[in-house]
C-alpha cells in the first residue's frame, strides 16, 4: 500500500507540469491578447510592445513558461494583469476560501439529507412513498439553476424580505437578543446559494443510495452468506456494506475533489465573491497568471482527493487490487 501511495504521489509533479504547460499553451495560443485588452482603445504597436515586455509576455513560449515556472516554484504566482498591483495569490485564495466554505456546507447537507432519503425510498420500495420521493427530488433537481434562481430570489428576498438579495457575509452572523445577548446564527446570505447547490446534489445522492441499496440487498453473495448461516450483522457489515459503499465513496470523493471550484452561475447571479465567477472573468480577460494559478490549485486538490478515494476503495473492498494488472 505504501509503495502504491508513493508511486501515485511521485507522479504528481509530472502531472502538474503537464497541466500547467497545457493551460499555458492554450491560453497563449488562443485568440485574444491581454495586452490589447489592457491597452484599451490604444493601438500603437510600440506601446503594445512596451506593455508586453513589462508584463513578461515577450519571448518564445518556452522562455515565458520557464520564467513563470521558476517563480512559481518559489511560491510567487505572479501578478494579475487586469487587477494591477494585486498578486495572484491574494486575489485567488480568499475567493477559493469563500467557494470552499459554500461547497463544504453543501456537501454536508447533501449527504446528511440525501442518504436517509435514499434509504427511505429503498425501504418503501414498491409502495407509493418511493416514487413520490424520487419524483419530487427529480423534479427539483431537473430545473436548471438559471431558471430556478430568479423566482426563488424574487419570492424570498423581494416579496417577503426573508433573505438578502445577494452578496456574501461569511458563515456566521450575530443576532442580538434585546441588544444584550449575542447569538451566532448562520448568515442569511447563505440560504439562497445553499438551496440552489444542495437540491440537485441530495437528489442525486438519494437516487444513488436507493439504487445501490436495492441492488446490493439482492446479490448472490448476500444470499450465499446467509445460506452459510452467518448472522445478519456479519452479513451486513462484512459483505453488504463494503459493496454498497463504493459508489458512494466515488460520489463523496468527486464532491470533495471539486471543493475549490465554484459555480459560475450561482456566484454571478447572487453576487458572491467566489472563485467560479472570478475564474471565468479571468478567462474572458485572458489574465493568464490567474488562470494558471487557479488551475494548478484545483489540480492538486483533485489529484489528492482521487488518491484518497482510491485508497478508500482498496480499504473497503479487499478484492480490489490497486495497481495489479489483469492480463489474461
Amino acid at each position, binding site marked *: 500500500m505504501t509503495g502504491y501511495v508513493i508511486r501515485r504521489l511521485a507522479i504528481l509533479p509530472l502531472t502538474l507540469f*503537464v497541466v500547467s504547460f497545457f493551460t499555458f499553451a492554450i491560453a497563449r495560443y488562443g485568440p485574444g491578447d491581454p495586452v490589447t485588452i489592457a491597452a484599451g482603445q490604444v493601438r500603437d504597436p510600440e506601446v503594445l510592445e512596451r506593455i508586453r515586455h513589462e508584463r513578461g509576455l515577450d519571448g518564445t513560449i518556452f522562455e515565458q513558461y520557464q520564467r513563470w515556472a521558476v517563480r512559481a516554484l518559489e511560491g510567487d504566482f505572479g501578478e494579475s494583469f487586469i487587477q494591477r498591483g494585486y498578486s495572484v495569490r491574494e486575489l485567488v485564495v480568499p475567493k477559493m476560501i469563500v467557494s470552499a466554505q459554500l461547497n463544504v456546507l453543501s456537501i454536508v447537507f447533501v449527504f446528511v439529507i440525501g442518504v436517509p432519503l435514499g434509504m427511505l425510498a429503498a425501504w418503501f420500495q414498491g409502495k407509493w412513498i418511493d416514487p413520490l420521493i424520487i419524483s419530487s427530488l427529480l423534479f427539483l433537481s431537473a430545473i*436548471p439553476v438559471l431558471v430556478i434562481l430568479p423566482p426563488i430570489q424574487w419570492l424570498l428576498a423581494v416579496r417577503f424580505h426573508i433573505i438578502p438579495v445577494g452578496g456574501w457575509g461569511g458563515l456566521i452572523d450575530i443576532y442580538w437578543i434585546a441588544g444584550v445577548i449575542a447569538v451566532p446564527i448562520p448568515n442569511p446570505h447563505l440560504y439562497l446559494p445553499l438551496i440552489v447547490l444542495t437540491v440537485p446534489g441530495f437528489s442525486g445522492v438519494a437516487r444513488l443510495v436507493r439504487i445501490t441499496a436495492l441492488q446490493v440487498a439482492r446479490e448472490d453473495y448476500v444470499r*450465499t452468506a446467509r445460506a452459510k448461516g452467518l448472522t445478519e450483522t456479519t452479513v451486513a457489515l462484512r459483505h453488504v456494506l463494503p459493496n454498497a459503499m463504493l459508489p458512494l465513496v*466515488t460520489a463523496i470523493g468527486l464532491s470533495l475533489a471539486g471543493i475549490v471550484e465554484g459555480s459560475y452561475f450561482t456566484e454571478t447571479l447572487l453576487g458572491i465573491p467566489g472563485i467560479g465567477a472570478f475564474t471565468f472573468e479571468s478567462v474572458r480577460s485572458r489574465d493568464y497568471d490567474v488562470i494558471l494559478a487557479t488551475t494548478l490549485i484545483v489540480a492538486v486538490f483533485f489529484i489528492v482527493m482521487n488518491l484518497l478515494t482510491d485508497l478508500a476503495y482498496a480499504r473497503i473492498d479487499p478484492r*480490489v487490487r490497486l495497481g495489479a494488472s489483469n492480463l*489474461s
Partner: protein
Amino acid sequence: MTIAAPAAANSPAEAAASRGSVALFWERLRKKKLAMMSLMVIVLIYGGGILAPVIAPYSYTQQNIDQALQGPSRAHPLGTDRLGRDMLSRALYSARTTLVVSVAVLVSGSLIIGNGLGLIAGYRGGWVDNTIMRVGEVFSSLPGLPMLILVNAALSPRVDEFAKWAGRLPGGGGVVHDFASYISIFAALSLFFWVGTARYVRSLVLQLRERDFILAAQALGASTPRILVRHLLPNIAFIVVLQLSATLGSVAGTEVALTWFGVGVQPPTPSFGAMIYDGSGTRTFQAYPHLLLVPGIFVSLLLFAFALLGDAINDVIRER
C-alpha cells in the same frame, strides 16, 4: 415473472441479455406508468421540434416590435418577447435546436470515450489503468467551462468553416450548419468531461472482474475483448443506459449554459438558452415573468422526463 437463475457463474444481467431481451425489456417498461408518461413528454417536445416548421404559428424571426412583451393572449398563446416575436413558435424551434444538439452529442462519441476508457482501465489494471487515470486527472483538473471558452475561441474559425461547408452540402441548410458546429463543440467538451463516467465505470469493473463468472471465462481461455464485450458490458449496461438518459437529459441544461457563454447557435436561431438569457435577472422576472417561465418550464420538463425515464429503465434492468 422470475427467470430461473442458471448456475452461479452467470450474472443476472447476462441471463436476461440472452433471452430476447429487447422485447422483454420493452414489455416491462411499458408497465411503469411514470416511464410511459415521461416518454410521452419527450416525444411531444421533440416531436414539436421536428415539426416546428409545419406547426409553428409564426416564423421565429418575425418581429412585431409594437406588440412586444405581451402576456399570453389568443393571438400569442405564450406571449411575445422583447421584439414582439411569438414565444410559442420560438419555443418549438428551440426544441428543434435541443434535438440537434442531442444528436450531436451522441454522434461526437463523448459517451463512447468515457465508457470505453473506464472499461479498459478497470479491467486491465496495471500501467494501462494508471496511464488512463493520470491522463484523466490532467484533463479534469483543467477548469472545464473556461477551458471550453478558450478552446472554442481557438477553434471557432475552423468550426465556422466546417459548419459553412456542411451547410452548403445538398440537403443541408440551417440545421446541418448548426449540427456541424455542435459536433465540434461536443467533441471538445468530451475531452474534458469523460473522466467522471470513466471513474464510475472503472470502479464497477474493479469489483466485477474478480467475480466468479469472469474468472471462469478467463479460465476457459476467452480473449480480453470477448470478456469485455460479452461479460462485462452487460453488467455495466445499467450504468451506461442510465448515463445515456442522463446525458440526453442534461443536453438541454448544457445547451443553456453554453449559450450563456456565447458558445453554440447564434441568433436569430432560437434556443432555450437564448430565451432563458432574455428572461433572466431578478428585475426582468418581476416585470415580465413569462420570458423566463416559458423556456424554463420546457427545459425543466425535458430534464425531468429524462431522469424519470432513466430511473425506470434502470429498475427494469435490475429486476429479475
